[in-house]
């Protein structure tokens, strides 16, 4: 099969690269290797939450923070991608979300501070409007709301932590629980089940009614697990606020994450509806290179191998979840060129003693050129028409600085620009 530009990946960086190419009038093909990290790791687009992985104070102005990061660390993937890629990529994303029927908000020069399911304040930049009312820069009291028998959001835990973590102890934080209409708490139900039910007006009004009775403080905002609709979430959120009479905000939960599902499902469908060809569930496992150019990549799909030819390739695997590289006991290789990306005497060296510290394995990846081409150790590109976005890039570790979305956008956008110029 022959294409203009092939994008490999299933996370946000692959989506942004594909959309960028589409908006520029190119004809990309999107190759999905498998289940996406979007399901697990995305609820908001975090651009820069903290200046370094261990500092405690949150960044208030992410774009200035990234500018500083680029100045201080010229090897950082943000520096490789460049600030304009972040800025242009972010506007492209917000436009796209609007066009695809999402209601998102946020600007690059301001972080919101949103309570998580453990009640920890977390800085986020671009967010679904259904989460925005949780911003801790605002003053209204917060009541976390949970449901009997639902284990993936514990309002009491969130409230207990936030009452410590939120500056100004006089502010009220509370927790309530209500039974869900017609749902027996001793029966299995998930976030997705509730999200679907919330699209039913009768069910939703009943929940709103119960919450209205349970919440005594008229000024309070209600923090709910992210279950306000699966496909019609914008309407559900607007209606639910009216029905409860309170500002309402959603809080991301453990997988299966409704916020991740919404994002993945709708962006993917929008790409398909606007004419982008996709190849599904086909992990790429080999790049064929001759004379410094990649001739084709080989996909493993449904029992047979399928070669894909394109003028340029964007490898936008976001991290290990998406298969950015393969780790044996001692050696880490990438799935395309089978180059050794890292060698370890023992597998334990890839990790820190603490789960909550930066992990050495997260930073494994290719050295890249100024144009985001994967290079040999000597800096020479492996193939002049291959470009990297996401976790294949060495030093790509968005976890500690809370920059997953921003780094995906910046590298995805920049890789797309370079691929078009190739």
């Amino acid at each position, binding site marked *: 099969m022959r294409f203009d530009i092939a994008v490999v990946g299933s996370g946000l960086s692959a989506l942004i690269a594909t959309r960028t190419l589409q908006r520029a009038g190119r004809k990309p093909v999107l190759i999905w290797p498998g289940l996406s*990290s979007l399901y*697990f*790791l995305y*609820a908001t687009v*975090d651009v820069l*939450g*903290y200046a370094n992985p*261990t500092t*405690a104070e*949150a960044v208030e102005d992410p774009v200035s923070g990234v500018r500083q990061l680029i100045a201080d660390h010229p090897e950082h993937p943000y520096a490789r991608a460049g600030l304009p890629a972040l800025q242009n990529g972010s506007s492209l994303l917000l436009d796209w979300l609007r066009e695809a029927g999402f209601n998102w908000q946020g600007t690059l020069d301001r972080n919101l501070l949103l309570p*998580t*399911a*453990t*009640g*920890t*304040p*977390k800085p986020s930049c671009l967010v679904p409007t259904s989460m925005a009312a949780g911003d801790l820069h605002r003053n209204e009291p917060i009541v976390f709301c949970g449901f009997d*028998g639902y*284990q*993936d959001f*514990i309002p*009491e*835990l*969130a*409230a*207990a*932590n*936030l*009452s*410590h*973590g939120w500056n100004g102890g006089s502010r009220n934080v509370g927790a309530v629980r209500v039974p869900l209409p017609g749902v027996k*708490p*001793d*029966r*299995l*139900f998930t976030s997705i089940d509730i999200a679907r039910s919330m699209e039913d007006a009768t069910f939703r009004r009943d929940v709103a009614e119960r919450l209205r009775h349970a919440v005594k403080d008229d000024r309070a905002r209600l923090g709910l697990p992210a279950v306000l609709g699966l496909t019609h979430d914008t309407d559900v959120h607007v209606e639910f606020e009216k029905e409860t009479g309170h500002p309402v905000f959603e809080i991301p*939960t*453990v*997988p299966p994450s409704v916020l991740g599902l919404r994002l993945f499902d709708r962006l993917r469908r929008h790409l398909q509806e606007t004419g982008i060809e996709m190849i599904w569930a086909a992990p790429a496992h080999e790049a064929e290179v001759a004379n410094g150019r990649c001739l084709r990549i080989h996909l493993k799909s449904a029992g047979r191998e399928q070669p894909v030819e394109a003028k340029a390739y964007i490898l936008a695997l976001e*991290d*290990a*979840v998406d298969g950015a590289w393969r*780790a*044996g*006991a001692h050696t880490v290789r990438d799935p395309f060129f089978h180059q050794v990306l890292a060698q370890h*005497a*023992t*597998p*334990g060296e*890839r*990790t820190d003693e*603490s*789960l*909550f510290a930066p*992990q050495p*394995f*997260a930073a494994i990846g290719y050295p890249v050129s100024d144009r985001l081409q994967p290079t040999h150790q000597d800096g020479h590109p492996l193939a002049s028409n291959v470009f990297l976005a996401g976790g294949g890039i060495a030093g790509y570790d968005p*976890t500690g600085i*809370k920059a*997953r979305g921003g780094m995906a956008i910046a590298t995805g956008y920049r890789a797309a620009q370079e691929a078009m110029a190739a």
Partner: protein
Amino acid sequence: MPDTSTGVVVIGGGSTGAGVLRDLAMRGIDAILIEKGDLASGTTGRSHGLLHSGGRYCVNDLAAAIECVEEGRILRRIARTTVEDTGGYFVSVSEEDEAWEPRFVEGCRKAGITCERISVEEARRREPALSKQVRTVFWIPEDGHLDPFYLVVGNVESARRRGGQVRTYTEVIGFTRNGNRVSGVLTRDAMTGEETSIGCQAVINATGAWSGFVARLLDVEVKVVPVKGVMVILSRRLAHAAINRCHKPGDGDIVVPGLSVAILGTTAVKVPHPEVLPIEWDEVQMLIDEGAKMLDGVTTARAMRAYAGVRPLYDLGAEAEGREMSRNFAVIDHEERDGIAGFTSIVGGKVTTYRLMAERVTDLVARRLGVSTKSTTAEVPLNDREDELDQLRHRPAHLGVPKPHGEEVALQPLLCECELVRPQDVEPWMKDPAVRTLEDVRRRTRSGMGPCQAAICSYRLAGRLVTDRGVDGRTATRAMADFLETRWRGVRHVFWGSQLRQAQVTTGVHLELFNVDRQLTKYFPPPLAGEGQGGGVPAEAAEVEAVGQP
């Protein structure tokens, strides 16, 4: 005056101590068990879970093999759901192994172990994963899998129903004496530091590899050699039955399938202290290489974690006097040997023979107390019900699997999807003061033991601490983080393949969605000493560990 009084204080909450507590309670003797960490947090909970048929000992240690045969049969009666009746194979993969075969067959005959040679074809039909290297196969129907956590908890709960008491996270720091008679135990809470005294007529030291430290508090010596064993857990069983190498017992020669996993065992390295148990990469690699000689798929299966336990090997040569006997364990009567009345140690042995060990030491202590009641632990099931399965364990059948005929049972919510643990399985332990950490909940329910290593259930359990136990949010979050850290310590040693993806989901949920790393750095004091480790490591041991670690 002591704060509390009882008949016997049992020190040590492993299988032996738990068995002793039950035996005492069944003879009507008041007793309190104290344990410096959690139940089954030492040797027992870190065993590979083989219920020994005796096949591994029948050549070199016939007396031990005979005990295993008998005790294995008793455990199948009294702890039916704690034992998984897998059977086992002894396989030869080399000429040296084949040379061992006649001795093995003869040993089985002498010990009374059922042993049947079957063709390799037949063996492969039953166990398709047997490796191509396998030359000879013996079927040993009485090998099995023993869940060490349920075994200990089952014994303790049985004792509690009869008035026995248990205090976890309670260290012994000294004894009170009345002349040459021990009259009580001084204890300290390992977490709060609170000190308490318990008056008693007798003390039983059932601390296994720690026996020497306890005895030293009375200025007597018990020589126990702590020998480390490392094990690797694979996320799949690979085999129905236990697979042993048919040779002189050595390193990496056993694969024990249990529930949904398989455990590769083991190594044997003398260590300076029972809590200095570094896991070396060489050991992990050896276990995988050796396991692969017996079973295909060992190298490609997902290794979930590695862990280390300590055997309490007892040097019998040095303790020729003052003991009631057996080849593999010993009851040390310190009254006879050292002139200290009211103090008895039980040392050596293994999980399979815990009940017999408990019976022997309790016989002696009961006699000294003038109690003539005989042990009934071999007859009465752990759950006291002849006709019902042990209710400590819930099988997947309870979870809403459609029945073959008739109605479909609705799916029930799960708290830990990996290990099929329901919220109601956790509930009673949230009310139990002996349960202090989420690791303690894990040991009693299996929550967090599966492939995701607590990434999901840790949040739900933290929530339960707040809602069911009333702890504050910070403590609950700290408990969640400590639980994840303890799981992480085992995962790190087998960090390749799918483990990286799993780790990314865990960090994605806890660091990115929840921002727990900032909760810890910004809003928390440093962690409680020793939490999640089953009690603190003594200062000198911690130093040894720091030096000994690569």
